[in-house]
């Protein structure tokens, strides 16, 4: 399965947020999208998931035009997203949150297997399964959000800033989990501000600046590229 973003343009009112984006993601890859705040990273993921409709260009999963589908159909095709800020359902229990992740899955046995898998990956969620999601700590909520995304049994998982607001030790464990998820055959699209970590994890990366792609390369190459650091900390004078 291959995800293609072609000449994607998105407008919020009169403001052009994405100005002709091209990104492709091959099966089994980890691709990271980097960039400063407001560059359009989250908008890109939201457009792929169908929550934002593009004003031009399109998103294709193999040959299926995702931008013509409703969000709930896109999930059904095997594309799940872990949104920025986690957005767990705070007044629902952990288990209910996870089951909602599998909302489109009819096969009950499969849901059970996925639940087992998620609990294996995040044992803490099993222990807290009856607790309201809003009462979890930030790191636990992030695990829940990822677990909820996995419950959809996705072939492609979009992750939006999974490290946001987490202590470094937790970030590391979340990132190892992402690697493990990828090894189990799930393609990963990772939006991150923690560029170094993201590039160490990813196969390839794109750097976004105000709605355009300014760099695109293999992860190692980007890691060595001083321009990436510039995008975050500014160039040395």
């Amino acid at each position: 399965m291959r995800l293609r973003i072609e000449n994607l343009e998105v407008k919020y009112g009169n403001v052009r947020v994405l100005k002709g984006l091209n990104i492709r993601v091959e099966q089994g890859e980890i691709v990271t999208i980097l960039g400063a705040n407001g560059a359009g990273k989250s908008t890109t993921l939201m457009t792929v998931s169908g929550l934002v409709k593009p004003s031009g260009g399109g998103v294709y999963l193999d040959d299926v035009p995702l931008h013509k589908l409703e969000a709930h159909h896109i999930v059904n095709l095997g594309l799940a997203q872990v949104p920025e800020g986690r957005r767990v359902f705070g007044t629902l229990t952990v288990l209910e949150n996870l089951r909602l992740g599998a909302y489109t899955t009819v096969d009950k046995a499969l849901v059970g297997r996925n639940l087992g898998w998620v609990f294996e990956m995040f044992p803490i969620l099993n222990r807290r399964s009856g607790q309201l999601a809003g009462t979890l700590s930030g790191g636990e909520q992030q695990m829940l959000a990822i677990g909820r995304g996995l419950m959809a049994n996705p072939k492609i998982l979009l992750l939006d800033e999974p490290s946001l607001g987490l202590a470094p030790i937790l970030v590391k464990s979340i990132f190892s989990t992402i690697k493990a998820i990828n090894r189990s055959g799930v393609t990963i699209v990772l939006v991150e501000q923690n560029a170094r970590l993201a590039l160490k994890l990813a196969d390839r990366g794109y750097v976004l600046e105000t709605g355009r792609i300014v760099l695109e390369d293999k992860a190692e190459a980007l890691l060595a590229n001083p321009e990436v650091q510039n995008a975050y900390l500014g160039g040395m004078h």
Partner: protein
Amino acid sequence: MAPDKGKVMQLFLEQLTNGLAVGGIYALIALGYTMVYGVLKLINFAHGDLFTIGAYLGLTLLLSLGLTGHIGSAAGILVLILMVMGLVAVIGALLERAAYRPLRTSPRLSAVVSALGASIFFQNAIMLIYGARFRVYPHDLLPVTAISLFGLTIPVMRIVLFGASIVMMTGLYLFVQRTRTGTAIRAAAIDQGAARLMGIDVNRVIMYVFLIGPALGGAAGMMVGLYYGQINFTMGWVYGLKAFTAAILGGIGNIPGAMLGGLLLGVIESLGATYISLAWKDAISFIVLILILIVRPTGILGERVADKV
């Protein structure tokens, strides 16, 4: 002189049970407000009129079927209530499609005005069809008996009414808590965007909400007809406003809150009418509402939400 303690107690219990019966009706209507508000953040002003429609449809069906005899009636009435619920549910879903869905992305005031318009439309439609005068429910359908409990006489009708509302509320609660669709409704009320990322068709969820709420409201309408015996085309305003108060009292958007708020309001009103002033009965609920909103704007079971700047 010591007051007659027995009489005092009896009056209190009498009013308490009356309050619970009326409160059950408020709660059933309040559920419709709270569910719609939860998902759409809209006060469905027309909900009170769906309740009225329930009362009038119930009357029409009762008269056209010509039920007689107590036993046959009891079963018949049950069937009729289910029919009324189904019909009002369909009207509710149509209302959503026609008056609210086109305004989903508009400012909230537009939707509120549209709701008011829909309410005026329904009220006048009922008046055109049934006339402006009070209509009377057939009163010989159910046995007009009362049972004695610890020296207290309670009309059977009151118990049946209270029981029916409890059954319906429990059913709804289980549906919302236990089923996949129910969880989807709760999720959509918390965060529509995240719900869509889960693959939930939010439009469908909203349709469910507009089927369930009006169904319960319609049932409540018929129950009022059976309990009080007479109905009027404007009764939806009064009941609707009180039920909405109940929903806020419990914490709007919160389903158990609406049930609690409804019962509480019924009891407060009934006791207030007895011990404070009957004439001020209809004002009590509004005074409670204002006090609640000043002291605790999110209601009893509602949660505080911080404003983001």
